[in-house]
């Protein structure tokens, strides 16, 4: 144990005497968190609620007779829709198109001449839409008329499959007072995260992965200085030497982690969530993952430069794919991103910042623990196979 501690202290001494290490380990992460958090504050986080203005919809009844499409005419006049659409009859398609161009209308619907007749004869209910200039108007009006058509076609299907009696029975049921959809403000009472929080977490994880460079530097440095040869001739076992070196690098990385968390909180107000011990556990797992991964790389690389290149490539690649450099689409992050170490830790840290329940954090914890365990096993195997020799 004495030898392990002696080697670890020596490792700490050498790391702390290097200005480059001090700058890269402690200063650079904070600078990056500040710059990215400030510059990209508009990209990250939950935007404020927007109110929806009613859309003026041009209704064009082909054949000029709204009476031939009483279903549609009744629907657009229903009081529930007044918050969403303002129907206005247009005499022709051209008038509707001109109105859309001039901004008089936000949306237009062409109703076929025999709409009611077609529906009553069992055919699909169909309307023609002409989109306006505003995306939001198109979404609102489109949703209204899609729901209308969907409802009619659903009943048509029910009648065809179950028979007219079932449909009549269904219609005879009193209307339900409760709706399956509950409207509300999803953000009400919840928490948001800021760009600083997002980048503080992603930069912390990136720099924890970068600590792998210290591992390869430490392992190859001893060889390059020939001190490994001297130490190997001393009463020190290979296990003591290796453990001591990993302990030294591990302590520096843990200090780096604590510094980033504490100083980002004090300097930039980054809130790291309500579970400090779980946060520490996630950080420790990432440190373990980073170090064991770097050990494996160092065991199979012949030179320090090659090992550094591999660690650098993997660190930057995983940080990017996990959305650590810029928020990526959810589909991307949840597919490709899930193959990165960062993904599971970043997701957990963001969830902790949002005060998510433990049940939402534990799956990530298990995945990260499994990754750490797997890499630790692989590192031990590669150490036994390749060894650490002068």
């Amino acid at each position, binding site marked *: 144990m*004495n*030898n392990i501690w*002696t*080697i670890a202290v*020596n490792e700490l*001494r*050498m790391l702390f*005497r*290097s200005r480059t290490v001090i700058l890269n380990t402690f200063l650079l992460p904070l600078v990056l968190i500040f710059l990215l958090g400030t510059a990209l504050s508009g990209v990250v986080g939950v935007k404020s609620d927007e109110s929806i203005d009613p859309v003026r919809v041009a209704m064009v009844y082909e054949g000029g007779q709204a009476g031939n499409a009483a279903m549609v005419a009744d629907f657009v006049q229903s009081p529930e829709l007044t918050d969403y659409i303002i129907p206005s009859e247009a005499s022709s398609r051209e008038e509707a198109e001109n109105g859309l161009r001039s901004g008089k209308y936000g949306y237009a619907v062409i109703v076929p001449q025999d709409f009611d007749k077609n529906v009553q004869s069992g055919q699909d209910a169909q309307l023609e839409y002409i989109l306006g200039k505003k995306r939001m108007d198109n979404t609102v009006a489109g949703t209204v008329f899609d729901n209308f058509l969907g409802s009619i076609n659903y009943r048509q299907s029910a009648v065809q499959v179950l028979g007219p009696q079932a449909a009549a029975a269904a219609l005879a049921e009193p209307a339900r007072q409760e709706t399956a959809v509950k409207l509300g403000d999803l953000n009400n009472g919840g928490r948001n995260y800021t760009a600083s929080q997002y980048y503080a977490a992603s930069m912390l994880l990136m720099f924890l992965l970068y600590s792998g460079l210290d591992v390869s530097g430490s392992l190859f440095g001893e060889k390059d*200085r*020939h*001190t490994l*040869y*001297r*130490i*190997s*001739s*001393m*009463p*020190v*076992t290979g296990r003591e030497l290796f453990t001591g070196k990993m302990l030294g690098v591990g302590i520096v990385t843990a200090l780096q982690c604590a510094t980033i968390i504490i100083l980002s909180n004090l300097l930039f107000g980054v809130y790291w969530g309500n579970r400090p011990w779980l946060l520490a556990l996630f950080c420790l797992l990432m440190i373990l993952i980073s170090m064991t991964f770097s050990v494996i790389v160092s065991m199979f690389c012949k030179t320090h430069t090659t090992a550094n290149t591999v660690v650098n490539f993997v660190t930057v690649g995983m940080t990017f794919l996990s959305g650590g450099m810029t928020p990526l689409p959810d589909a991307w992050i949840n597919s490709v991103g899930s193959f990165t170490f960062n993904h599971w830790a970043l997701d957990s840290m963001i969830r902790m910042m949002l005060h998510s329940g433990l049940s939402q954090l534990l799956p990530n914890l298990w995945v990260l623990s499994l990754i750490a365990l797997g890499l630790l096993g692989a590192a031990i195997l590669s150490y036994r196979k390749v060894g650490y020799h*002068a």
Partner: protein
Amino acid sequence: MAIAELSNVVKRYDQKLTVDHLNVTIEEGEIFGLLGPNGAGKSTTINMICGLLAPDGGEIRIDGLSVKSNPLDVKKRIGLVPQELALYETMSTAENVAFFGKLYGLRGKLLKERVEEALVFTGLSDKAKDKPSTFSGGMKRRLNIACAIMHRPKLIIMDEPTVGIDPQSRNHILESVKTLNQMGSTIIYTSHYMEEVEAICDRVAIMDKGHIIACGTEKELRERVAHEEKIVIKSGAGPLAPELIDELGLHPRINRVKTLEDTVELYLPSSQSELQDILFIFAKHGGVIASLQIEEPDLETLFLSLTGRTLRD
């Protein structure tokens, strides 16, 4: 009493025998020189003695302990001065020595005393706080030694400790080796500088191709080649004529002829009886003699007579 016993030691690299059934015993208190050209197997032998390499066969015992069975106990008794400088450039001289001292189990006051002792011994006590990056090659070599002796090992192994340094530092190191020996340590000293080995070693083993081809005191080894003398003749008129060299080679009493630019070395049983013939051959071919020297046989001569090659070939 033997401090190191190597019995039938074998080491192979890719089926090539690097150390070939080596048998040697090193007595406590002696300075034992291990001499041989590059690739002779000296470093491999040292690595096996220090427990850095496992032999493929045979046994090595240090101070009565088997290296294989008690590697850590053996390592406590050994101080290795590597051929390459093995130092931390970002740490001070004293920190370097103290770090390695701690790995030998030294702590507290004893560690402090031993660090000071090692630095005084190597003449670096006034440089204790300086970093090796500011040192000359010779000072770095001395620090390299200090790091290996602070635990007062019974056996000090020095692997070519004077490579690439100035004569002053070289003499300092050679004197240090003698002093360490007088203080009770047994020394194994490897070199391909024959003069160093001749100057400080009590016994010398000459290695070649994994074998010890000769072993004994300097006197014993010289006696093995006492039947042969060396005459070195330097030409006063550039390179010697090939006909002259050929005729010298054909002389029945001259064993070997070696030419080095404008110098010729002749190995023969007795210089006195053949000197007249040699001068006659020179005169016959118009050779001009700038200098003529009759040399006593040395270890280089012995190595040459045993292998047909020089130590630095």
